[in-house]
């Protein structure tokens, strides 16, 4: 540790730290223009000049380049320092008289008018070179450099031509202190892509994400893109996030990892999948950027979304009318016959948001309004009072006429007439469905599935979070459509069931399981592939099949298949069932009919 003073304040610094870094850490202001923590100090602008007293000598030094030394005395605001900066600002202001940052900084040092005239008052570049250094040293793209010398010196891409070396990362625009660089997109559009994607290459997936940590979008990240673009020869481009992160939490080498844990309980909370409305062409989804799903609307209206929460059309205008169609893919025998349960309420909420943020007219096409939860019906009444047009009848068709409006056709069942509404935006309240890989999860955990594809609970009324596999519980929408309050309640129940199980320290299993009589098992291996729970396995060293009673659910499939009669299904033995048959058929038919 090095001890020295800045402006009379004793400070400590690690070996190799610059005076500027220490001062910034200690909150002592030193102005800079060409400094950026992600880039090696360069000392080009010299605005960070300070007075340094060491070994009995005093001189002016750029604080961004001078390392801290034991016993040195630094002064950041002496008259000499002030004068030096004043001179510099005069020169900067003369070059770039119309750059606000320069104007402000010059004013701080008493320079309000450029001391020297200029022919190019629109000039913004102060030739600090930050952009060049970022592009070369950080991004590694080497798409920018200085050309020429002296007063004609300038920053430009090689040969002043468009370059394929530029990856459009925008790092230069971010570091440029004077806003001299602009990225020009070939086409300008707010909604060129669905407003659901991340806004930067490193982002927190959602504000509600748990754990709330950022992730890197490796398709967007400069480092990964450069790595991919150069086939690995430029593997350590950028890395600014890592450099900046004081917690040192960023690790680019981190990949997907398979973690094996021995656990006593598993809660399956694999959620749901949004049904893809492309499957029903009558909703014209994909034919206009202004036909969006409810989830996309959520993103659009989110304050952290691409429009900062403004509800805008693809061309940036505010919509004047919006249609929200319920039951898209739900309660529909050509898609999902079940009710997705959450859509009515979010559709009402979205109507409210549209009314509140844009004042646009809102048409809700609904079949039945399922406001089943606490205070939901009251909310429904409130929305009606807000002037939302409620049309009872399924939105049947969305048309995309060339004039730019969208036309929604449907039936108003209350009036018994067909209706047609022209709107700017259509929101489809699409169904929620089981995850596409639910079958894999189901065979992995031995879970049953109900007809709708969601995982089956052990009992629809009495065991809503348990499954047929002991120790595996269901939480949330993987078991069936449910909204947030219900998911929270369901999950809480699953957690408490799991905790109760763990706390007990032992498990109780059903006695109705299969068991192998090893005196009779002849190792034919018929049963081995039959068990969906892998409860029957072949024990090579004993040359018999054996049932793991903790895994066996007692379905009896192996019992019925065992050709050697070596497997008994306890409580449903062959003897018992055959005796039942005999017993039943011993009753004379006359008695049966009398009864």
């Amino acid at each position, binding site marked *: 540790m090095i001890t020295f003073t800045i402006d009379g304040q004793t400070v400590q610094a690690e070996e190799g730290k610059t005076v500027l870094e220490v001062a910034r850490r200690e909150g002592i202001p030193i102005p800079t223009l060409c400094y950026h923590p992600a880039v090696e100090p360069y000392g080009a602008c010299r605005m960070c000049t300070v007075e340094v007293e060491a070994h009995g000598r005093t001189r002016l030094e750029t604080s961004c380049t001078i390392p801290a030394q034991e016993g040195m005395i630094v002064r950041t605001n002496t008259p000499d320092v002030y004068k030096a900066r004043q001179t510099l600002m005069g020169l900067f202001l003369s070059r770039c008289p119309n750059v606000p940052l320069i104007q402000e900084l010059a004013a701080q040092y008493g320079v309000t008018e450029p001391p020297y005239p200029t022919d190019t008052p629109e000039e913004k570049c102060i030739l600090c070179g930050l952009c060049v250094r970022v592009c070369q040293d950080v991004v590694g793209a080497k798409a920018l450099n200085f050309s020429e010398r002296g007063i004609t010196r300038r920053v430009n891409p090689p040969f002043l031509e468009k370059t394929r070396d530029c990856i459009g990362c925008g790092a230069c625009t971010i570091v440029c202190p004077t806003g001299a660089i602009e990225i020009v997109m070939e086409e300008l559009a707010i909604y060129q892509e669905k407003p659901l994607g991340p806004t930067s290459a490193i982002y927190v997936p959602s504000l509600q994400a748990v754990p709330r940590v950022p992730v890197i979008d490796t398709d967007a990240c400069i480092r990964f893109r450069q790595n991919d673009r150069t086939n690995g020869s430029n593997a350590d481009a950028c890395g600014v996030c890592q450099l900046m992160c004081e917690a040192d939490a960023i690790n680019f080498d981190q990949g997907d990892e398979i973690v094996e844990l021995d656990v006593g309980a598993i809660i399956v909370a694999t959620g749901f999948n949004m049904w893809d409305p492309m499957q029903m062409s009558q909703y014209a989804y994909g034919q206009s950027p202004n036909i969006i799903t409810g989830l996309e609307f959520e993103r659009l209206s989110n304050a952290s979304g691409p429009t900062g929460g403004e509800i805008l059309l693809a061309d940036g205008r505010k919509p004047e009318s919006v249609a929200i169609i319920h039951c898209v893919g739900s309660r529909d025998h050509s898609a999902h016959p079940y009710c997705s349960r959450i859509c009515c309420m979010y559709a009402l909420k979205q109507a409210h948001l549209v009314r509140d943020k844009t004042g646009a007219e809102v048409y809700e096409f609904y079949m039945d309004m399922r406001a089943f939860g606490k205070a939901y019906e009251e909310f429904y009444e409130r929305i009606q009072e807000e002037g939302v047009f409620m049309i009872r009848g399924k939105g049947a068709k969305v048309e995309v006429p060339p004039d730019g409006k969208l036309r929604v056709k449907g039936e108003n069942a209350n009036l018994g007439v067909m209706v047609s509404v022209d709107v700017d935006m259509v929101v489809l309240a699409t169904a929620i469905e089981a995850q596409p890989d639910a079958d894999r999860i189901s065979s992995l955990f031995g879970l049953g599935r109900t007809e709708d594809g969601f995982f089956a609970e052990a009992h629809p009324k009495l065991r809503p979070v348990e499954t047929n596999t002991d120790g595996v519980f269901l939480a949330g929408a993987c078991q069936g459509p449910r909204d947030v309050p219900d998911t929270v309640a369901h999950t809480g129940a699953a957690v408490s069931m799991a905790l109760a199980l763990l706390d007990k320290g032992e498990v109780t299993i059903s006695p109705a399981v299969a068991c192998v*009589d090893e*005196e*009779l*098992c*002849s*190792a*034919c*291996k*018929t049963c*081995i*592939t*039959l068990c969906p729970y892998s409860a029957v396995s072949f024990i090579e060293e004993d040359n018999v099949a054996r049932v793991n009673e903790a895994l066996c659910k007692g379905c009896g*499939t192996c019992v*019925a*298949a*065992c*050709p*050697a*009669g*070596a497997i008994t299904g306890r409580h449903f033995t*062959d003897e018992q069932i*055959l005796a039942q048959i005999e017993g039943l058929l011993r009753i004379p038919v006359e008695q049966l009919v009398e009864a």
Partner: protein
Amino acid sequence: MANTKDTKGTKNGKLKMGLYWAASCGGCEIAIVELREKILDLDAAADILFWPCAMDFKYKDVEAMPDGHIDVCLFNGAIRSSENEHLAHLLRQKSKVLVAFGSCAHEGCIPGLANLFDRQSIFERVYLETPSTDNSDGTLPQISYQMPEGEVTIPKLYNTVKTLGQVEDVDYFVPGCPPQAPQIWAVVEAILGGKLPPKGSVVGANEKTVCDECKHKREDKRIKKFYRPHEIIPDSERCLFDQGIICAGPATRGGCGALCPTVDMPCRGCYGPPPNVVDQGAALLSAVASVVDADTEEEAARVVGEIVDPVGTFYRFGLPSSLLHRSKLD
């Protein structure tokens, strides 16, 4: 047989033994001949009161015996006619221990497949339809027929082949078509040593199935296609069933030494069902179908639809002793 004194009541202390056959092919008799040198040991240890193949004995002598005179009667052959049944009753009466010997007496055997038909259709085929038969008069055998010289009678053929156990109380069952010599000898030794298990037991066979004795290597079963034996040259090392050839081994009592698979032919089940299996054919059917590698109804129906002749395959040896005994009589 638990009491050895009962079985050694002859003057010279030797066991009084009888061998008899009803409706059978005679293979069980040859199986006794297959004892080879041990026949001499048998001769030394037991008085064989009658052995139709090799010994003289008289029907009347048997009728004249006091009840229970024969210590052990090995009865082979099924019950196909009134005469077979009559003799089964007589021998039961005269024997302390009545043993159903061989597949026919035990479970009906291959001739039991006749239970898929009735007497009339068999007569029509044999005496009227067969192309070599010249029978323009439509003559059929008659139980009683008046010849010019007098009445000639022959026993009545039953519609249904029955096992010995279905018409009489049987003490022990020796399975196999035919029972294999080492197993016969083991039974003889048990009889001589008075070491027979409780009445009603199957003796001369194992508790485990044929698979236990089979040398072919078994893997997990997932059958995509069934092959009839002539349709495939199987890998000699691997389990035939695993290769799609229906093999009754998994549903058949062991004890034969898994002989058929030694020449790469599948077991057809002559040793009958394993101890806990009620119906051998149903058990085999269930196992065979369960391991079909088909996850849709259509595919499963297609694959199992390739199995020709389920009854003849799954009940090759045991139709008369199956739960249904025979096909429906019209």
